[in-house]
């Protein structure tokens, strides 16, 4: 077998141009599909990370209550039952954050900038101070009254310096206008982009501005240790909480529009937009109604699109490979004709039919695998170069980037799948010429002269 493998290797280098063209076609197809898989694989991770950074977790629990004027306001007063339910997941939780948030306008001089500000319970979020790349000031000062930490982009837009006071115009939980004053104590490098970067203050300072009592918060966000367990853990939390409090159903509404509205309203609450809705008496409730949302709820559609992109990419790859395989089949027919006398001589010297066939199959496999290896090499090189290009964090595509850089993941599983596909197709393409070569009668083959 080793001997025939050597012959196949030697044969593949006899017609260098032809082998190069066939291998090149395979390399090109492999390069495209690997790049696409790298891109979509990186995209999935980047989108999930950007979303979880922007919203501060993998599972998001918001609360809403009906006030004395039958208006729905975003607040969570009886959070004890929620915390009890969350305790059941404690082994799977990496961190919990209890926050309030609002969306408003930062005003400095004649400049203003729309910004979501989150109030952080710093005494409980020990890891908060290490989660940011602080570029100016100190994050430790954030516990001071009216202290704020903003992103570099926001600070540049407003032309702010550390220690300066900036106005913040926003609305209370019931929709009244209010104006707060913040002192800039720290600046951090943008992380999520796409306008989802928040500013941060301590919980008490923000509560004062949005009219929440001291110690209250509007959302509880959970970072899980394993992102893959989001759906299972959310279901567990939902079932547990349902026995103790009113929880909005997680089942998809029959009416698609209703479902979209519900998700949009929840996202608005998570974005700090104080949504106030009149609640008809028949829909009213007492105490806090909880809503549980997950990272997957908001990224599922994007994920599906990415999956579709992968499938389309694979189909294009298969079509490309089939075209290449037609080329391989024709080339090996030519090879068979060119080497008829040689095959006759080998057969006369006692080489069996199977081995003649194997030499052809090995040769095709060598060309295909070398082509795939070349495609893989070029795709990894191009990915490496693209990964070094900074596309910036201030454009629409920034949400699909990891801090301005394309995240390209080497798709090991897909690479193996593609290698197997290429090998299988090469085998199928070469099988007919190989069998035809094996069937040649030694006497006839030796007499043949093209």
């Amino acid at each position, binding site marked *: 077998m080793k001997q025939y493998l050597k012959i196949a290797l030697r044969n593949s280098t006899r017609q260098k141009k032809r082998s190069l063209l066939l291998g090149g076609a395979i390399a090109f197809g492999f390069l495209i599909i690997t790049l696409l898989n790298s891109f979509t694989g990186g995209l999935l991770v980047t989108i999930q990370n950007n979303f979880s950074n922007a919203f501060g977790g993998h599972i998001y629990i918001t609360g809403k209550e009906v006030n004395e004027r039958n208006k729905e306001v975003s607040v969570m007063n009886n959070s004890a039952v929620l915390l009890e339910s969350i305790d059941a997941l404690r082994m799977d939780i990496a961190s919990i954050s209890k926050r309030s948030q609002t969306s408003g306008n930062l005003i400095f001089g004649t400049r203003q900038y729309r910004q979501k500000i989150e109030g952080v319970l710093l005494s409980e979020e020990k890891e908060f101070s290490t989660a940011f790349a602080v570029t100016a000031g100190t994050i430790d000062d954030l516990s001071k009254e009216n202290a704020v930490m903003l992103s570099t982009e926001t600070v540049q837009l407003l032309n702010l310096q550390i220690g300066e006071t900036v106005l913040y115009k926003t609305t209370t939980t019931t929709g009244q*206008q209010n104006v707060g004053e913040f002192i800039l104590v720290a600046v951090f490098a943008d992380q999520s982009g796409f306008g989802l970067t928040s500013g941060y203050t301590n919980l008490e300072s923000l509560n004062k501005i949005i009219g929440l009592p001291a110690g209250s918060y509007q959302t509880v966000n959970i970072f899980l240790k394993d992102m893959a367990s989001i759906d299972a853990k959310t279901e567990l939390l939902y079932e547990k909480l349902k026995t103790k409090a009113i929880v909005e159903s997680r089942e998809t509404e029959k009416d698609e529009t209703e479902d979209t509205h519900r998700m949009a309203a929840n996202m608005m609450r998570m974005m700090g937009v104080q949504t106030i809705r009149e609640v008809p008496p028949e829909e009213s409730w007492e105490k806090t109604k909880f809503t549980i949302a997950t990272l997957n709820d908001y990224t599922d559609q994007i994920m599906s699109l990415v999956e579709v992109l992968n499938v389309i990419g694979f189909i294009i790859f298969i079509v490309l490979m089939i075209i290449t395989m037609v080329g391989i089949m024709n080339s090996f027919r030519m090879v068979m004709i060119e080497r008829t006398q040689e095959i006759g001589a080998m057969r006369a010297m006692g080489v069996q039919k199977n081995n003649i066939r194997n030499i052809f199959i090995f040769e095709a496999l060598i060309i295909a695998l070398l082509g795939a290896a070349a495609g893989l090499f070029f795709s990894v090189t191009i990915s490496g170069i693209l990964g070094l290009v900074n596309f910036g964090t201030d454009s629409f595509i920034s949400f699909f980037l990891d801090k301005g850089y394309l995240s390209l993941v080497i798709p090991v599983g897909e690479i193996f799948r593609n290698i197997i596909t290429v090998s299988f197709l090469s085998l199928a393409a070469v099988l007919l010429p190989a069998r035809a070569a094996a069937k040649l009668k030694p006497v006839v083959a030796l007499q043949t002269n093209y």
Partner: protein
Amino acid sequence: MKHFFITATILLLITTSLVASPNFQKMLEDIDRQSNFDNKDFSSQVTMIHEDPEEGIDKTVLRQFRRDRDDMFVILLQSPEVKKGQGYLRAEENLWFYDPESRKFSHSSMKENFQGSEAKNSDFRMWTYSKDYTVESWADGKLGNFDVWILDLKATHNEVTYPYKKFWITKNENLLLKTEDYSLNKRLMRTSLFLSYTKSGDTYIPNKIIFIDELIKGKKTQITFEDISTMPIPNSVFTKAYIERVSR
């Protein structure tokens, strides 16, 4: 005898103060009534000139249709070209914004600023000051050549946009000349100047208003109402279908 004099003096003081103090609640009701068109429809051409120290000056022209008895209004933007076809519909306690690009209606709020100006969406509907505010204190004074009452108002509930307001009201016709709007922590946010009024039947309509942003120096919006009409407006105008049709 001594007690009699003390009691009489107290009674006299109370009576004097009651006589001197006008009925401010009624004054607010008058202001609401004067600006509302309970039994009529109202339409006008509105020109908004918005000045922003960072973005410069821009002009927006729109057509407004109001039916106060049902708390409904329709606003159709006519210029600039980029905003042409956009519209607002206030109906059944909801405010809808129509975008002709996407051909979709999205939910909006009366508390939001209108088209990035200093005017709020709620500035285009009837006033309800008598329901939403009570008079906390008052003084009399002068504003330009006008003798005015200066009222400090406090919201009766926590859902109005501005929790505190200050009104300058003419003494003879109860016309609002100036308002100041304050935040929950009593910071001055906006000043509105009602520069002129036009009379239609029993109703006074402010036809030139300036809204001044007190947080950003130099930011203001001037609104002028022209072609004012109180002729009946067809019911079909206050519908989404109408906005879609005229926006094509």
